[in-house]
């Protein structure tokens, strides 16, 4: 027992501090991806409702592709593919040296484009849930289209979209484990390395599972709170919170 505790302890002997650092990388890449993916998703959702045929087709194609291709494959394509592409442009410009795409950036972009595809569906459902009258009333009050979106539609959008976005976040959190295959030093990567060094796979993958579980449970609690907060205007009297 003491042996296992030592392995998980902090300091040069144990892997506790490394695992904690990995957990930080996991949560950072998830948090870094979130705004990028959600914003892109909202843009795609708006494009799906656009009057322009080109925009609509592009948006539909985008969501079909990125919802249908395994995340692992998307990650490889972006990590290797974009790297080759960027390198070609770099050399084509006659610039010296090699350009390496950092695993963090590649992971962020890959997870972000996938998150965008899935969150676009959530945004779309929420956009459809807001009646036309809201926009008409806003325009009757003299608000521009952008003002109507920012002041009238968006605040209501968040309330409707929150449960779906919460799901998107949980999926994203778990998908970050894939970035370990492109050598980003997240929880999963550290657990794999600890396993190679100590030959205690059960211990370290359990520790990794505990870290992910902690984040998941924390998130689901947090989203519960957020939803109560977003719905406070709709809570029945005396039943709030």
């Amino acid at each position, binding site marked *: 027992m003491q042996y296992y505790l030592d392995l998980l302890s902090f300091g040069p002997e144990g892997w506790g501090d490394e695992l904690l650092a990995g957990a930080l990388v996991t949560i950072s890449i998830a948090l870094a991806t979130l705004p990028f993916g959600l914003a892109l998703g909202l843009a795609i959702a708006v494009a799906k409702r656009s009057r322009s045929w080109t925009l609509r087709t592009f948006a539909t194609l985008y969501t079909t592709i990125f919802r249908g291709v*395994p995340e692992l*494959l998307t990650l490889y394509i972006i990590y*290797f*593919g974009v790297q080759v592409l960027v390198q070609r442009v770099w050399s084509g410009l006659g610039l010296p040296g090699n350009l390496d795409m950092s695993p963090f950036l590649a992971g962020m972009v890959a997870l972000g484009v996938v998150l965008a595809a899935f969150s676009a569906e959530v945004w779309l459902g929420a956009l459809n849930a807001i009646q036309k009258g809201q926009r008409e009333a806003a325009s009757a009050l003299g608000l521009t289209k952008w003002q109507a979106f920012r002041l009238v539609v968006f605040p209501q959008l968040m309330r409707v979209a929150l449960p779906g976005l919460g799901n998107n976040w*949980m999926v994203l959190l778990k998908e970050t484990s894939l970035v370990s295959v492109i050598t980003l030093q997240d929880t999963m990567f550290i657990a794999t390395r600890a396993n190679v060094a100590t030959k205690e796979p059960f211990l370290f993958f*359990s520790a990794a599972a505990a870290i992910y*579980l902690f984040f*998941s449970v924390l998130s689901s609690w947090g989203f519960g709170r957020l939803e109560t907060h977003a719905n406070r205007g709709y809570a029945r009297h005396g039943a709030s919170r």
Partner: protein
Amino acid sequence: MTWCEYPGAWIGLEVLQNYGCRMASGLGLTLQLVAISFGLGIVIGLGLAVLRLRGPKPVRMILQGYITFFRGTPLLVQLFLIYYGLGSFRLFWQDVGLWWFIRDPLYCCLLAFTINTAAYQAEIFRGALQSLPHGQAEAARALGMRPFAIFLRVEMPQAMIVALRPLGNELIVMIKASALASLVTLFDLMGATRLAFARSFDLSIYLVAALIYLALVEIIRRVWDGLETRLTRHLALR
């Protein structure tokens, strides 16, 4: 030239011609993995959902823990925990005579995928069963039906219709998640693709794989839409 080399030769993609046969058998393995784990998942998930709703309290709590764990951690962690983690207790498995199972990455993959999808499907079935109005079971009881008959003839048919759409989504998630099998040395579609890329350094093979996965998902989506229209035709507005 065998049949599996034709697509590559036909579109003039050398890497696909060279690795076409491996890709084809990889696709076969992917389909097998998904079909077996999803099929077993339905059976287990349904059982778990019923126990989760109507079982004794300790069982309900244990199941809640199981579902939270498998839905709250990445499938990759679960796969490694089973393949590497359980695999490290070699002497124990040899004692109980299950070493042949744990040793094999294919069985480990099937086990991980099955218990993972069972947890998700249990939640789907639970939601579907809970969505039925109480009056349905009460009316059936008033008609003198036995509990099992009520479940089989009144609750199940209605719950399955509610569960149909989320089950389709889960199947699509499984197809995509099956790519993880390539990380425990299996040559599924993703594994074959990785091998082809590692040997040829031709990125277009990844795009071919993406197209195959996309086609799979699209076929399932179409089939599922058809299935839904067919099964709910008595509910359709004329």
